[in-house]
């Protein structure tokens, strides 16, 4: 899916999609259990480096994504920062009360989100959607009818987007000729949705007939792409584990935040 913005492939591209999903789950739990903001910060830096080096995506796209991730990280922490509890007041205005404690806790929460986003981005950039479904069918015995329906549905997304753009253009040229009430508010949303839905339903009906006419059924089939577990999966896991261990080590020796537990400052 990201072939057009990829510069090079790395071994992560060949890691089994299921391992990636499993690691993402483990990472989620791990990050929740880390309460030392110093550890999280180092771990975040490691994940950032992994994403930049191992995704193989063109730098401008990485930068754009990082921007989005960090902004959403900051936004997600504002509530905690502005309204959190704490004794060491840094700033106060009306009900807004920024304390040192709330600031650190806010940043801590934001870092969790950012780490998961960075790792998620690495996985998404390096995994083909078809490989995920092949892996699910082969290893987890997902029935082909679900796997292939999803893959077919994903193909339709760009078509729906281009239809939406055309609808907008059509509205632009018709709108000045007619009463505004037809092209604004609920009426506009309704007509857009009905048109796009009916186009998609018609297309998927035709596609389902085409699929069955090509001999597709939920029965036995061979698999062209084999997804197996390999040493690469282990390497990837070790890479992640080592960066976590180094982060923990560093957090014991070089502090950046003046605490080792965000819960009890």
């Amino acid at each position, binding site marked *: 899916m990201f072939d057009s913005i990829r510069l090079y492939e790395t071994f992560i591209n060949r890691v089994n999609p299921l391992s990636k999903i499993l690691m993402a789950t483990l990472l989620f739990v791990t990050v929740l259990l880390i309460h030392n903001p110093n550890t999280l910060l180092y771990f975040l830096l490691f994940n950032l480096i992994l994403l930049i080096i191992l995704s193989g995506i063109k730098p401008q796209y990485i930068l754009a994504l990082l921007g989005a991730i960090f902004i959403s990280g900051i936004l997600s922490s504002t509530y905690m920062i502005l309204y959190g509890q704490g004794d060491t007041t840094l700033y106060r205005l009306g009900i807004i009360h920024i304390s040192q404690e709330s600031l650190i806790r806010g940043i801590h929460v934001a870092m969790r989100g950012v780490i998961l986003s960075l790792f998620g981005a690495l996985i998404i950039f390096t995994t083909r959607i078809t490989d995920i479904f092949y892996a699910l069918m082969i290893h987890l015995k997902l029935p082909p009818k679900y796997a*292939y329906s999803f*893959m077919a549905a994903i193909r339709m997304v*760009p078509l729906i987007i281009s239809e939406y753009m055309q609808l907008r253009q*059509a509205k632009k040229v018709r709108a000045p000729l007619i009463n505004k009430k037809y092209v604004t508010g609920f009426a506009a949303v309704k007509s857009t949705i009905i*048109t796009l839905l009916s186009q998609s339903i018609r297309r998927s009906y035709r596609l389902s007939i*085409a699929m069955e*006419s*090509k001999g597709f059924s939920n029965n036995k*089939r*061979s698999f062209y792409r084999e997804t197996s577990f390999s040493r690469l999966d282990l390497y990837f896991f070790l890479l992640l584990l080592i960066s976590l261990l180094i982060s923990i080590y560093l957090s014991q020796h070089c502090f950046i935040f003046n605490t080792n537990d965000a819960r009890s400052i």
Partner: protein
Amino acid sequence: MSAEDMRIPMKVSKDDLFIQGLDLNFPEEKKTFNKLNLHIKAKEKVLLLGPSGSGKSTLLNVLGGLIPSVIHASMQADNIQLISNKAFVFQDPDAQFTMPTVEEELAFVLENLQLPKVEIRDKALQILESLNLPVSLDTNINTLSGGMKQKLSIASALLQNPSCLFLDEPSSMLDEAARKTLWNTVESIWDNLTVIIIEHRVDYIWDKVDRVLLMNKNGEIVADDTPQNILDNCLKQLNNLGVWHPYSWEQAPVFKKIKPEEAILTVEDLTIRRKDKTLFTVDKLTVNKGEWLTLEGPNGSGKTTFLNSIMKLIPSHGSIKFKGKVIKKTKDIVGQVYPVFQNPELQFITHKVYDEIFINMENLFDIQQAQKETESLLKAFDLSHVAHLNPLELSMGQKRRLSVATALGGLPDLLLLDEPTFGLDQKNTFDLLNHFHNLISEGTSIIMISHDYNILKRYPSRRLEIRNGQLIEKEVSYV
């Protein structure tokens, strides 16, 4: 089952398709077939012709075994013999593929046949080569042209090793050149196959098929003969049903040429770009009142983009003047210049055919007058009987007419039409051409994208073409 087989007549060989006494209807619709009989011999090439709604697709789906197993309908036959190894190619290139890349799509078919993994790649490469489809295996299907997508469909069909091939309007969404290539491809592979074809534009295949079946609106086969005999004996019937045939254009409407008047649109030094690349340039183009211009050019050369840039729907560099006024934004010319897009479905705003016209009128007239105007426009475009339907329920011809009619609240000075006759049958095409001529006689000018040679050499007063990155004017020569 064996008892039924016994009743199949001796003359029917086991590779033939045979249907006797077929009754079929879809829920909540009138009966599609009533006691239909048909016998198609092995390796015969058969063309199914008929107006829309005649049940040709339904018949094809019965013969191909999709009805009743995949598409549900209540069906009964005294006798039926079908062929199990068959393959289909359908009309819509965007609704035939399951997977994102060429390789995965071809593999999908072979996986269905449970072919071992190691054989799949070679098979896929082989079929691409034999069909002369020069794409690499990892090509994304979305980046292929319509013609290449349909060739890929044929490739998928052939991978199923069929003895019978069903083609349901495979070229109706392709331009002239791609259509020709497609039919040449089909002809190159069909020797040992039984082939059943539904097709609107029959120019390339009429002489190649063995047999033509003509169906009427009631789902009856009204003629069944060789192509030559059908032309000799049933010409009147063909015209009445409004289907294309090799002599169609002899009945095409002939219009008096209209003398152009003052200039309304001037385009100067226009550069159209797509993603940092210059697509083409226009040195100078003037459109006069009462002119009918056509615009040609290969796929992807930027014809639609040009119409959109006149409308200022996309950015461009250069000057566009309409009636002496420089146009900067869409809303400067909207209403006076009106584009009709290629997909009529995407031009509709309301949920009723009647409202689609009425909302244009209600701003211009008081309510009674608006209703009267709406009704007369619906009548002029032969849409009165479907005025209560949702626009999306209409047939293709009706949708096209309605999308043109949405331009006509007032009378636009310039109509921009993007392949308006694409995929229409003879009757609907000629009807639309008549409408266009009427509009021009009332003072509208038209710029129309078209690939149809028969239209290009009959109707335009001037012909434009995008060639080698430039918009040029072509010599007009009429037949």
